[in-house]
């Protein structure tokens, strides 16, 4: 073996194709006790690599070694036995089982063939304490946990194993700031214990905090590996995209039109309390806040997706009575939901069917119209696909999101509500979405964006409203906002409550 002595993982000539090649002659070296970042556009091959290492996918060709020993897992447990654990992007928790059962499902402690509840609980408590969830009762059903907590339980399960290489794929997408801190603390501890970590994320600030080196993937190949400290963000973005790209262009001055959407004293359950705001045509309003501040619930209540307990919604000066989403669409609203797979897409159906879903009208389908409308959508949003008849499940996350947004270009929506429109979306697709939103605003549409990424809101919005604990606590204009002020406002509801 030619690799240096401190090499833990060595990948050479790795190839994997599905319909098209995803990894092509891929090489990678990860050192012992190193936190190694993988960045790249969606579809660059990061997740595929992670899945091959973790035994969830087979390779077509190539060599993988751990400390010089060949690593050829045929399924997940085999990879775990070799010390390689992948924390999945999608959660893998069984909701009806208890936390303890979830943690040790593969090796429940038993006595005389029966589950040894006491031993199970003790083991679970120890594992939970490691990830800062010591206060949880191990008998709680996993369904009772928030998404972030579930993710930490997954991490606890991974750590309960003898782990030598931990692979994290977008781990913080669903975590609160506090949970993210716990995760980072664990990663650093593991590093001190000599564990190597592969960390896949789009979030540069996180990578900078915990990673030693970063490898950039593009179209199934590794195009560069740099020490994290020496890699500037513009440089990384350029490597990912293969061309220069402005990450955050300055906001543009638009002339806002008349009030397009006016929400007054909206209440919905405990999550939304007395929320009022207005958006004008041609204006982009951002809604910032912590996870659980009621932002998603506000959008859903406006759109009629959830019950609304009070308040009024006026669209272009006309009072509305929205009881279900179809009323909202008829009134000129559009919603891009937070979870595109569950709430946005018909995954097995084609781009054409998904792209025209919001524009179905009359009695018969006009196939030619659909085909041409889909072609326009694909072109305008630069959707990467082979054909409009391709199932959207085969697209990358960014391209899927383009379809969910693009769907609303067909009906003449006046107000676009977008919930985390770029979550899990690669950088080039993000830029395409930003460009589209600016164009739509220039066309006079009113846009409301809920996002957890402050740079995104600051780059896009004409105004940012901050929600905290179910209320809008303050609105900021561009000259007023700073990341610190926005963050401080997001916590305000929790300080007074």
């Amino acid at each position, binding site marked *: 073996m030619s690799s240096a002595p401190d090499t833990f993982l060595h990948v050479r000539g790795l190839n994997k194709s599905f319909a098209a090649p995803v990894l092509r002659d891929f090489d990678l070296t990860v050192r012992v006790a190193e936190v190694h970042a993988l960045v790249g556009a969606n579809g660059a091959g990061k997740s595929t690599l992670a899945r091959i290492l973790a035994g969830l996918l087979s390779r077509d060709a190539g060599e993988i070694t751990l400390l010089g020993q060949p690593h050829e897992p045929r399924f997940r447990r085999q990879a775990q036995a070799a010390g390689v654990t992948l924390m999945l992007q999608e959660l893998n928790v069984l909701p009806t089982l208890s936390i303890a059962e979830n943690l040790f499902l593969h090796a429940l402690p038993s006595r005389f063939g029966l589950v040894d509840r006491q031993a199970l609980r003790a083991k679970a408590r120890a594992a939970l304490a490691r990830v800062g969830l010591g206060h949880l009762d191990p008998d709680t059903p996993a369904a009772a946990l928030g998404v972030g907590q579930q993710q930490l339980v997954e991490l606890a399960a991974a750590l309960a194993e003898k782990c030598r290489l931990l692979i994290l794929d977008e781990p913080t997408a669903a975590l609160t700031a506090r949970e993210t801190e716990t995760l980072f603390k664990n990663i650093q501890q593991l590093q001190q214990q000599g564990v190597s970590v592969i960390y896949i994320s789009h979030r540069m600030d996180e990578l900078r905090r915990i990673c030693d080196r970063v490898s950039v993937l593009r179209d199934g190949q590794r195009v560069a590996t740099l020490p994290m400290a020496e890699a500037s963000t513009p440089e990384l973005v350029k490597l990912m995209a293969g061309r220069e790209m402005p990450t955050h262009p300055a906001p543009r001055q638009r002339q806002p039109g008349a009030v397009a959407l006016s929400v007054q004293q909206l209440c919905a359950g405990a999550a939304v309390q007395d929320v009022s705001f207005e958006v004008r045509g041609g204006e982009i309003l951002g809604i910032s806040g912590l996870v659980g501040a009621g932002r998603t619930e506000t959008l859903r209540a406006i759109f009629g*997706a959830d019950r609304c307990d009070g308040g009024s919604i006026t669209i272009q000066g006309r009072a509305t009575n929205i009881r279900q989403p*179809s009323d909202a669409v008829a009134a000129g609203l559009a919603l891009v939901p937070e979870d595109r797979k*569950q*709430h946005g*897409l*018909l995954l*097995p*159906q084609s781009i054409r069917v998904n792209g025209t879903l919001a524009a*179905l009208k009359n009695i018969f*389908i006009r196939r030619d119209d659909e085909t041409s409308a889909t072609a326009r959508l694909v072109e305008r949003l630069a959707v990467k696909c082979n054909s409009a008849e391709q199932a959207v499940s085969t697209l990358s996350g960014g391209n899927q999101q383009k379809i969910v947004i693009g769907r609303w270009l067909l009906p003449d929506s006046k107000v676009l509500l977008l919930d985390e429109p770029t979550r899990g979306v690669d950088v080039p697709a993000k830029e395409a979405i930003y460009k589209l939103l600016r164009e739509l605003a220039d066309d006079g549409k009113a846009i409301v964006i809920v996002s957890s990424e402050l740079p995104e809101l600051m780059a896009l919005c004409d105004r940012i409203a901050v929600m905290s604990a179910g209320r809008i606590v303050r609105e900021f204009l561009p000259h007023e906002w700073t990341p610190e002020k926005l963050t401080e406002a997001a916590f305000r509801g929790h300080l007074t409550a």
Partner: protein
Amino acid sequence: MKKFLHRFRDYAALVLILVALVALFGSLSNHFLTAATFNSVANRIPTLTLVATGMTLVLIIGGIDLSVGSVLALAAAVLGVLLVDWHWPLLLSALAAVAVGVAAGFFNGFVCVKLRVPSFIVTLGTLEMARGLAYLTTNSQTKYLAGKVDALAQPIAGLPITPATLLAVLVVVAAQFMLSRAVIGRKMIAIGTNEAATRLAGIATAPVKVFVFATAGALAGLGAICQSARLGASDPNGGVGLELSAIAAAVIGGTSLSGGKGSVVCTFIGVLIIATLEAGLAQIGASEPVKRLVTGAVIVLAVVADGLRKKSQS
């Protein structure tokens, strides 16, 4: 054109199974490839075709309708009582039978949508209720129709085709057209694929679902008329287990039980496969237990084969 060929390939596999069955029974029995067999099959299929078409639509929206057999019996009972005891004219009685089916289907759909009860449970309840009502309507007796609706089951101009068969084929064509060319068909497929996403795309899902259940009921009502015509009687015991045959036909035709995918034409071929099996097994003298054994095995085989075919395609 490519799309057409692709579609045809879906049918081709099923047609192949059908042809193989015909060839098999033809070689096993000298009497199978005769006009008499064809007549008997053609006579048996209209009822199952109509009911299975409705079932396919319900399965496509991700629901299930277990009540179709009982609803068919109830509609037949109403038809018999109106014709025989009340001396209503045929057309009105037939309309009333279909209306009974629509009402039952509407009830299923309404409870499903408004009270948020899973369709499996609602229609399981309707299965019992409609059967009970059928017995009450007829006083648990078979009504002999004395040739009042026979015309539906008489061969047309010496051909081995009855008006009932024509009606069934027409319904298949219309339903398939609705699925692939009408906006409501697209909405049905969308609902079956992902109801939450469909709702959030601004589609009112409730009316579509109620429409589909009502259609399934209406088709059970039409099925009742065809069945009564063939038997010359309306039997409150009729249609027992029909829901399972209808599901079987749909599943053989590749309809997904989890919704979002299905073809009425494929279901029709599924009906033909089941009918051919029954007729062929009867011809070679298979006993009732053996018939059931073989039919069950064919259902499983057809679905397994379909799965393998798709895997090899992708």
